[in-house]
Each structure stands twice: as C-alpha cells, then as structure tokens.
C-alpha cells in the first residue's frame, strides 16, 4: 500500500483497545461506552445527511422504532441479540425507505420539521398504547448471543463486544462510503442540485439513499440501547428531545470525520452524566451552555481542534 488511511488505522486501534478494555472496564464506564456507541452510530447517519445539506430533528423516530421493535420481539419470546438488533435495524430502514419517498422532496427547515412531525406521531402512538406500557414502557430481558446466555456482569460485557464489533464495521463502511462516487454526491447535492440533474443523476435519489442509511443506523442504535438499558420507554427513546440529542452530538462532533462522531457521543454522555450527578437541578443548563460554547468557539466541532493542531504544527515558527 502506497497510501495509508489514517482514519482506518485510528479506528482499528481504537477498536482493538476497546475490545481489550472491555474485560477490565468498570461497569459504569462500560455503560457510558455502550450508550456512546449506540448514540454515535445514530449520529453517523445524521453526519451523512448533514453532508448532503440536510438536518433532521426527528431521528428519534427510527431510534425509537428500532428500540421498540427489538423490545417487542422479546415479548414474543425472541432473545437472540443478533436477531433483535438485525430486526430493529431492518424495520427502521424499511420505515425510512417508505417515508423517504415523501421526505426527499423537502429541504432545509421543512425537512427538519417534517421528520420531527413523524417522530411525534410515533411518540403519540406509543404513549397511547397501554399494551406497550404507555409512558412507563416495559422492561427487556437480557439477550442471548447465538445460544450463549451470559449472566450478571457478563451480559453487559458481551453486549459491549457485540456492539463494538458492529459499530466498528458500520463506521469503517461509512468512512469508505464517503469516498465513493455516491458518497461524494452528498457534496454535489448540497452545493447545487440543478447541476447534479444536468450531469445526469437524480438529486432526490441521492437523498433517499442517504435517508434510508440514516434510518438503518438509527434503528441499530435504538435496538442496542433497548438491550443496554434493559428497558424501553417513550421519553428516552422516541421523544423529540432524543432527536435533539442526536443533533447535539452531530454539532459537537462536526462532520469532518466519522471518528469524531464517537468522540462527540462520548463527550455528550460524560457531560450529561456528570452534570446530572453534580447539579441535578441545573444539568440541562450545563448541557446547553456547553453546546453554546462549542458553537461559539468550535463551530466545526471537536474534530476541528485536531485539524487546528495539525495546521499549527505545519506553520513556520516566527
């Protein structure tokens, strides 16, 4: 290889390190890690949309759909994590495919809010459905892994491994995808749809593909979250504030690199956890303040710190 992709190397190192760390991590760290991986994967979908010039305020729809799909399957007696997560991912992707036919015709604020509208429909349906526990939700039993049924702490350890492997594969594929023609067309659609049409390709089709992808990964994140928490409920799975968290993570991370998304997700989890711990009355205030600080001082997100450092390195000394 003449050319080494730093992101692939970096992701692989992080993957192996976390793989190893899984066996030594404190339980609370693993829990934060799991949530970061799940939310980070959802944010990957938003990153792809964002690069196409679209922001969605409603991806809790797919997150919640994936989570509830997986959770409902456990009620039917299915407990295999592979099956549950695969099913959650797939149904969310299918929903995105269907809604995509409508949403691909909208841009900017209309796209953002139409997504939110659909997500609030799901929220409303869940809240009104007594069989699904209404606002309380219901609990999800510990999953099995191809016949292996761990107990105690081993459940989370195995789930973390499981999530890590899939997240790694998804992230790697997104990174490589962004360099393909279809991936690069995000830029083209964001910059000038008329030119895309007159070059011979459909801008709406490009958007639809990206939308389905974002639905798939949000479903994945949701299903993982349902298993990680062992519980689904509308307020932490399908409410619009959940969609807001994904947008928060995307702003925090910036759209420069797929790895940044997970750093952003981790930072988000840490801020939230500690803010809640030390200032239970003001934790939203701290969360909002940090978002404001990011927008003011790092408008391109956490990743821009890295590129700034790199530039500083190259700059000639005075």
């Amino acid at each position, binding site marked *: 290889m003449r050319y080494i992709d730093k992101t692939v190397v970096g992701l692989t190192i992080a993957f192996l390190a976390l793989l190893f760390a899984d066996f030594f991590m404190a339980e609370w760290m693993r829990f934060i890690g799991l949530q970061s991986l799940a939310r980070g994967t959802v944010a990957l979908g938003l990153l792809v949309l964002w690069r196409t010039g679209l922001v969605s305020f409603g991806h809790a729809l797919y997150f919640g759909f994936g989570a509830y799909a997986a959770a409902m399957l456990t009620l039917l007696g299915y407990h295999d994590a592979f099956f549950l997560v695969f099913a959650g991912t797939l149904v969310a992707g299918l929903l995105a495919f269907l809604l995509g036919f409508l949403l691909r015709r909208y841009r900017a604020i209309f796209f953002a809010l139409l997504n939110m509208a659909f997500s609030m429909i799901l929220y409303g349906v869940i809240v009104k459905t007594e069989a699904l526990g209404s606002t309380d939700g219901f609990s999800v039993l510990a999953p099995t892994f191809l016949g292996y049924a761990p107990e105690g702490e081993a459940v989370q350890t195995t789930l973390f491994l499981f999530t890590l492997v899939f997240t790694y594969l998804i992230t790697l594929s997104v990174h490589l*995808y962004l*360099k*393909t*023609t*279809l*991936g*690069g*067309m995000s*830029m*083209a659609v964001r*910059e*000038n749809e*008329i*030119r*895309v*049409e*007159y*070059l*011979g*390709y*459909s801008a709406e089709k490009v958007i639809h593909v990206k939308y389905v992808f974002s639905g798939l990964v949000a479903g994945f994140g949701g299903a993982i979250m349902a298993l990680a928490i062992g519980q689904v409920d509308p307020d932490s799975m399908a409410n619009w504030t959940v969609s807001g968290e994904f947008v928060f993570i995307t702003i925090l991370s910036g759209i420069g690199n797929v790895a940044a998304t997970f750093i952003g997700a981790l930072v988000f989890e840490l801020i939230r956890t500690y803010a809640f711990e030390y200032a239970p009355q003001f934790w939203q205030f701290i969360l909002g303040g940090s978002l404001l600080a990011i927008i003011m001082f790092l408008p391109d997100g956490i990743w821009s710190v890295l590129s700034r450092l790199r530039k500083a390195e190259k700059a000639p000394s005075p």
Partner: protein
Amino acid sequence: MSVVLEVRDLQRSFGAVIAAKDINVTVNEHEIIGIIGANGAGKTTFVNMVTGYLKPTSGQIEFAGRSVIGLPPREITRLGISRSFQVPQVFMSESVFDNLLMAYAIAEETGVGLLSPLYNDERAERVDSHLRRYQIAEYRNAMASTLPQGTRKLLDIAMAAVRKPTILMLDEPTSGISVEEKFGLMDIIMDALRVDDTTVLFIEHDMEIVERYVSRVLAFYQGEVICDAPTAEAMVDPGVREFVIGEEYHRTRTETGGSEHA
C-alpha cells in the same frame, strides 16, 4: 447530414403569457446555431423545454428519432443533450478539479459502480486533460466561488461537455464578460467542442459573436421563431433587424444608406 433534433409545433404558456408559439426547428448534426432575440423573447424557455426543465403545453420534441417530451433533465442529459447556464451552475465551495471530478464520476458510473471510489488516477488524468482543453488548468485548485466570471463560465461549460453530448446548448456563454475577453472565451469553447464534433446551439446577444461563430440563426420574438436562416441572410432579414438587432446596430451598419428607421 442527419437530423438530430426535431421540434414541431411547440407551445408553452404561463397563464396568459405565451412564452413559446408554433416553434418548428430542425437541427442537423454538427451544426453551430445561434439563438438570438430580445429579453423575454422565449430563448431560454426554448432551451428549458428541449432539456426537459419545462414541459411544453403542446408539441413534439424528437431527439435522435425518439420523443423526449416528459423526460426529466437527467434522462435527456443521459441521452445526449447537455446545457450550460447563463448564471454558472457549479459546486461553489469546491475546487475546480473537484467540480470536474464529480462531473466525470457521475457521467461514468452507474449502478454498483457508484460505490467505487470517486477518485482514481485515470479519472484524475481525464479531468486534467479536460482542464487543459478549456484552458482553466491554472485554476485547478482554486475554489469555484473565487473564480473570475469568465473562468467560472468556462468551468460550467466544461462540466456540461464532460459527457461528450451530441447537442450542447449554451445559455448566453458571453453574458457578463467584458468585450475584450468575449472572443477569446468563444475561441476556447468552440475549439474544445469541435474536437468532439458537438452540435452547438447557443443563445447570444452580441451580433459580432453570432456572425463570427455560427452558420445558422434562430431569431425569437414574443415566443415565436421569426427567422430561421443562414447567418448572413438572417442579419439582413427585416424582422430580425427591427425586433432583435434594434436601431443602434442598424445605424452603424447602414451608415451609407441613411437611417430610414431613425
């Protein structure tokens, strides 16, 4: 010479405004045609209908023997009619190279091929030779938004020409360009397009440009083609002189004959 484009009885109205009326035009292979007319005469409407951006109210447009009525621009582009724009439509925050790289990639990849890398050395080589052909190689790494107007126009046309279209329609390639630069710009465009034997239709207001580069003129007035003739003939056509060229030009051309219209 074979017919590549045949337009019959084309009509288009916007409410009470008639933007196109009874347009009948036959374009042969390798022709260079100038489309002239005052503002609002229906020139761009004609281009928009042929390229699928606007659907005609009635009439027929046949390209290479098949009807293209109702097809979206992307499909007409794939069949072989490309266009450039009066206001260049490029990817503003990307470099000139990346603009053309994307144009080539979209033109060259379909289906699963869309998932192959956007950049490869062979494609980069094609982009660079295209840049040289349009003489914008020195701007290779400049962002499109920082380009001088003439260069951005060239980039727009270069992007439209990537597919080696059978017909290329240029919407006012020299608008917004200073008088001194116009001929240089047109020379570059016409030389580049001649290599692929492209049939060219372009909208133009400058009669000197028209006389120098085109063999045939379509003159529009209030949505109608009032003259379709070889350039020399069209320039002396009374209708064209009255409704398109106007008195200013007329006076300088007929200094010896007095000014019968003044």
